[in-house]
């Protein structure tokens, strides 16, 4: 019976929180009821490590002679022994020829504890009673492949590290370039600002010169004007006085009042006209009525103011009219008198009450009024009187309007006079200013400025254009200044290695070249034969060439050769000094060449196994551990198994564990 359990954390591989390596894996029974065991499984499932642990547990590290030829195994066992996370439990039992119960246990960070038949023992006891035969992986092809694979993986990792540094350097170079670019941009903007400043300065200077010239021209014009005024002094003064006087005469006329009055009178005229028409209508009506009483009057004549017919009629009816008029007036007076008394009062003389008297008077009045012709004539006279009045009023208003119209015409003259007067006054005032200055001085200045020549309007235009250009330049300058401010605000800080740009570039180039070499090394290690075809003497000039290839192959050959375990060939162990990865040939220290295909793994293992049994103490029980027996052909495998079975049967073998690779996960089985 064999029981086995082990776990550990691999330094450099496991990270905090990772689960440790376990053997057997979860779900696989850790106990098997036989002592002849075969374990199959994929690479990396821990088969070899189980054998290593078992070898360590059973004291194989003390087998110095064996380990002399297996430095790699020795290192592995020492590393395991030092690993504080290693823990294992092994139990091996058998009952022939006598009962044996060997138990070995190691807890984390502690020394192993051993029990033999339930009695605690030390490792020396185990060494005295048991022999360990550990046939490790010595298939030369596999060893070579594993070494090359490991080297290739390592070189790939180096390449990744180089890429990482290269990328960082590249970023730094970009940062520096960006920083430098910022400086360039900054310098360009500063130049633009300076250019704008100079332009503005130059244009302002031109502007100042033109302004001075314009000032001289205006001064010249001013002096000329003053001199002309002085020459015309008498005429200007005279004109000013004349117009002033005239203006004083008419200035009180208020144009607004005149227009308003004119409007009002015209309105009145219209009213009078309407009244005249109304009167004319009445005249026509009265004349028409009189015609009914055979009193023909020509209306047209009356309307035209011809009173002849009306006067004749009045003369004819005058006496009667006068009498009745007196009567009527008297009746009216009496009615008015009696109305002041009570109706019951008695009127003297006639001795009648007031009521009765009034009634009689009203009756008489009605009789008088009933004289239609008389009434119409009276009315006609009245209307004609009204017409006369209307005509008079009409004429009167017309006169007023005529006067107002004249005034309105005068108003225009006022405006003209006023305008002329203002001009004369301005000229007069300018003259007064000119008179206030010394004429000699003016003449002197005139001589000074006589040479000043130019078109002041053109100069003013140039000045305006210059002002526009100055404003444009100032706007541009302002924009550039703003851009500069923003650029500076957004600029990055000076890169850390800005002053070491050249060194960074050199380092980048060195890494770049190194990286190319490393990539080529990986390709050579993956397939030396294929890689070698790329390199020809002609292609040596650029990059990784034939000489680099040869240099690498040679270096790797020496490196592998120095690490390789002695190889069994021709019944001898040969120390290897070089391995030719192109030809798969070992070069031994005594300069022999052994092709890898000439080495037989199976032969080696079975020879070692039988040899070991022969050489070892027959009094000791054997524990046989065989790693990687994949290359054994079926016959050799059968021979190994048969040998081990016979050893178990004759009592010289306690346990045999064979490990071989397969595509299965893990399979643990026994054979008999």
């Amino acid at each position, binding site marked *: 019976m064999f029981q086995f359990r082990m776990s550990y954390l691999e330094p450099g591989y496991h990270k905090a929180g990772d689960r440790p390596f376990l053997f057997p894996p979860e779900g696989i029974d850790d106990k098997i009821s036989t002592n002849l065991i075969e374990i199959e499984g994929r690479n990396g499932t821990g088969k070899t490590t189980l054998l290593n642990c078992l070898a360590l547990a059973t004291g194989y590290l003390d087998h110095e002679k064996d380990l002399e030829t297996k430095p790699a195994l020795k290192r592995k066992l020492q590393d395991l022994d030092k690993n504080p996370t290693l823990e294992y439990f092994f139990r091996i039992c058998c009952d022939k020829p006598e009962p044996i119960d060997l138990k070995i246990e190691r807890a984390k960070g502690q020394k192993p504890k051993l029990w033999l038949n339930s009695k605690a023992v030390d490792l020396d006891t185990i060494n005295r009673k048991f022999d360990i035969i550990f046939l490790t992986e010595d298939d030369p092809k596999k060893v070579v492949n594993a070494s090359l694979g490991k080297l290739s993986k390592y070189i790939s990792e180096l390449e990744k590290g*180089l890429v990482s540094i290269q990328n960082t350097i590249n970023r730094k170079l970009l940062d520096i370039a960006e920083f430098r670019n910022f400086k360039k941009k900054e310098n360009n903007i500063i130049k633009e600002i300076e250019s704008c400043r100079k332009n503005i300065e130059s244009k302002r200077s031109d502007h100042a010169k033109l302004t001075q010239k314009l000032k001289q021209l205006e001064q010249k014009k001013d002096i000329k004007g003053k001199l002309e005024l002085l020459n015309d002094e008498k005429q200007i003064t005279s004109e000013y006085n004349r117009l002033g006087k005239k203006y004083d005469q008419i200035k009180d006329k208020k144009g607004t009042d005149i227009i308003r009055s004119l409007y009002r009178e015209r309105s009145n005229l219209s009213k009078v006209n309407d009244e005249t028409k109304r009167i004319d209508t009445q005249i026509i009506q009265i004349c028409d009525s009189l015609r009914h009483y055979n009193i023909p009057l020509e209306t047209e004549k009356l309307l035209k103011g011809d009173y002849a017919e009306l006067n004749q009629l009045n003369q004819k009816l005058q006496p009667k009219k006068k009498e009745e008029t007196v009567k009527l007036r008297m009746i009216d007076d009496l009615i008015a008198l009696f109305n002041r008394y009570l109706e019951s009062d008695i009127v003297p003389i006639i001795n009648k009450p007031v009521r009765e008297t009034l009634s009689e008077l009203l009756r008489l009045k009605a009789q008088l009024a009933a004289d239609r012709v008389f009434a119409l004539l009276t009315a006609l006279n009245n209307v004609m009187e009204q017409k006369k009045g209307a005509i008079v009023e009409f004429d009167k208003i017309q006169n007023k309007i005529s006067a107002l119209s004249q005034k309105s015409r005068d108003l225009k003259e006022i405006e003209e006079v006023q305008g002329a007067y203002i001009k004369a006054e301005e000229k007069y005032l300018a003259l007064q200013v000119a008179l206030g200055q010394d004429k000699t001085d003016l003449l002197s200045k005139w001589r000074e400025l006589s040479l000043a020549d130019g078109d002041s309007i053109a100069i003013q235009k140039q000045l305006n254009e210059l002002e526009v250009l100055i404003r444009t330049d100032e706007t541009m300058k302002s924009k550039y200044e703003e851009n500069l401010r923003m650029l500076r605000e957004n600029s990055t800080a000076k890169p850390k290695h800005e002053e070491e740009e050249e060194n960074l570039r050199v*380092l980048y180039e060195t890494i770049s070249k*190194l990286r190319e070499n490393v990539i080529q090394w990986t390709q050579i290690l993956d397939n030396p034969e294929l890689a070698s075809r790329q390199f020809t003497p002609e292609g040596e000039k650029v990059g990784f060439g034939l000489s680099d290839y040869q240099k690498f192959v*040679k270096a790797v050959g020496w*490196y592998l050769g120095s690490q390789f375990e002695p190889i069994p060939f021709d019944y001898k162990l040969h120390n290897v000094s070089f391995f030719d990865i192109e030809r798969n040939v070992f070069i031994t220290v005594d300069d022999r060449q052994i092709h890898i295909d000439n080495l037989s793994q199976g032969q080696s293992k079975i020879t070692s196994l039988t040899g070991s049994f022969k050489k070892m103490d027959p009094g000791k029980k054997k524990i046989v551990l065989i790693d990687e027996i994949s290359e054994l052909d079926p016959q050799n495998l059968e021979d190994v198994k048969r040998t081990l079975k016979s050893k178990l049967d004759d009592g010289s073998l306690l346990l045999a564990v064979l490990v071989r690779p397969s595509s299965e996960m893990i399979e643990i089985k026994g054979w008999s």
Partner: protein
Amino acid sequence: MKSKLYAEDLLKKLVTEKELKILKAVWDEELSIEQKIDSLLKER
């Protein structure tokens, strides 16, 4: 964890001294990339 440059004997035969320093810096897990670059620049 700082670890010795693996296969240094092999690499010595393949690269220059400067290149070997770069590889050593690459392999040094105790240094950040920035520190690796600083150390390489310092040696130049």
